[in-house]
């Protein structure tokens, strides 16, 4: 597996998260705490689209559950479902109310932070940065129960998403500077990140083999092609 950057576009405001929806890119402004919608990412420059509602969450990570926006507060690990039209927010997860079963409780530790979030197959996923307990959690939001846990491939998982075509999970770790792909059958692929992708933040699929992320060091968004 090899990672190639095939497009780099400049955001109006630096973002540590990214959500690709159709032909739009949604980001979260690090300074203004505002959601921003960009259109026409096939062009050389991004264009700001219709405004998105304000959200109360600071330092947010974004995902989409098929109908609504999911917004996670990285530091307190609370997650809200946000109606993209009205902006109505509903608290759907807080770590203290989860049932962990026999899974590790690193998500409860006060020094744990969320790197990225994703939605796949009706489950909510979090990539958490928790030192040597860094992990990917899968959560049934309806039952408030942890149903999946695997250790992260490094202490700084900053990007997480799933390929809906085959269910494979993609994780970017910023310390190890790697993209790893995990298949359900256990196969794992690893690719080094290109040096020009300095500080990865967020991961979101456009189509199979094509993902987007951000580079915190430059404030750009990057389109990444994964070649076999």
């Amino acid at each position, binding site marked *: 597996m090899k990672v190639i950057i095939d497009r780099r576009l400049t955001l109006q405001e630096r973002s540590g998260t990214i959500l690709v929806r159709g032909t739009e890119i949604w980001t979260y402004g690090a300074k203004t705490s505002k959601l921003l919608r960009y259109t026409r990412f096939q062009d050389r420059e991004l264009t700001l689209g219709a405004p998105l509602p304000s959200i109360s969450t600071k330092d947010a990570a974004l995902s989409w559950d098929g109908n609504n926006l999911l917004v996670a507060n990285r530091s307190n690990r609370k997650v809200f479902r946000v109606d993209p039209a009205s902006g109505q927010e509903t608290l759907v997860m807080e770590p203290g109310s989860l049932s962990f079963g*026999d*899974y*590790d*409780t*690193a998500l*409860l*530790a*006060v*020094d*744990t932070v969320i790197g990225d979030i994703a939605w796949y197959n009706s489950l909510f996923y979090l990539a958490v940065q*928790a*030192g*040597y*307990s860094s992990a990917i959690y899968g959560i049934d939001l309806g039952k408030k129960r942890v149903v999946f846990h695997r*250790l*992260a*491939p*490094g*202490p700084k998982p900053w990007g997480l998403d799933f390929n809906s075509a085959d269910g494979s999970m993609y994780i970017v*770790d910023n*310390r*190890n500077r*790697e993209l*790893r792909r995990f298949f359900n059958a256990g196969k794992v692929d690893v690719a080094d990140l290109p040096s020009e992708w300095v500080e990865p933040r967020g991961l979101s699929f456009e189509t199979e083999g094509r993902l987007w992320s951000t580079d915190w060091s430059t404030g750009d968004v990057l389109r990444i092609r994964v070649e076999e």
Partner: protein
Amino acid sequence: MGQRYAVLISGDLAENGYPEFFFDVVLMREMLIGNGFPANHIFVLYGDGADYNSANYPAARYRPNPAITDLSATMANIQAILSDLANGTNGRPQLTNDDLLFVWTFDHGSQIPISPGSATLISTLGLRGGDMRADDFATAINLIPHAFRIIYMQQCRSGGFIPHLATDRTVIVTAAEADRNAHPTDDVAERETIGGRIYPHGEFNFYLLAALNGQNLLGNAANADANGDGFTTMGEVFDYIVNHESDSATPQYDDGSRHLGERLHLIHVANTNTKEIHIGYCYWVTQMADSNKAPCNSLEELAILVRESGYNGCFYCLPRYDRDTLSEQQVLANLEEDLTG
């Protein structure tokens, strides 16, 4: 009397995104040998039972030759080797009530319900094939006879092991509280770079090694001997770690009701009057006048004293270097063997 043994356990594979799981095993073993532990008294349980070897990290320092891993880091192997050291089975030595046992653990660590559905949690050590609970770990390790134990734990939530392991003859230091995570090195001042590649380490391990080696991995001097008496005690090691690391977790410490950590250290003590060298916790050190004590900070220093200054190993605690019972030739051969690991 007075042999020193170590068990080093690192439960996950370096390939899984944490190369320090092997790097720190190498460094811990190196530190122990430098402090006079015979190489054949150090037992390494790492990953799947073979040293880590990656083209991404080619530094010779982290490719020990011969290989150092004895066994894979599974719960069954930990129980087996601890049982062997308790009973002297499978060709392994049997520890006695005069010996020092040094144990170091590293991997992921977690907390799980102590019984299904319970709100009470117990800390665990991550291992290949499943985690080991603190109570199970204590059951296995408590079988081993010892004069003293030194236990260092780098994994997350390791503070939860203390209630299970603490005794008046144990110094235990953990990287984190029972409900906190432990972290890798993160500051520029902790960045070991070889050939342009950064070699990560556990933050707790980084400062533990610095305190016990007298310098950190970047070659900068580290003086953990706070009272300047020449002997870095386990209590001083703990203070050094706490005062230097920047982890969001706080290291935890227990040395029993008699504060063993204020006296216990790894450094050899040379008696400048009798010209005998002792392990730091040897009974005869307690009988020595302070004015006659001189620290001997490494096996290399000890070798120089024996080879060039006529010093002798204590009959009780350093019998391998005792010319009163062994020939000169045998003592020198033992020294050479221990120096080359």
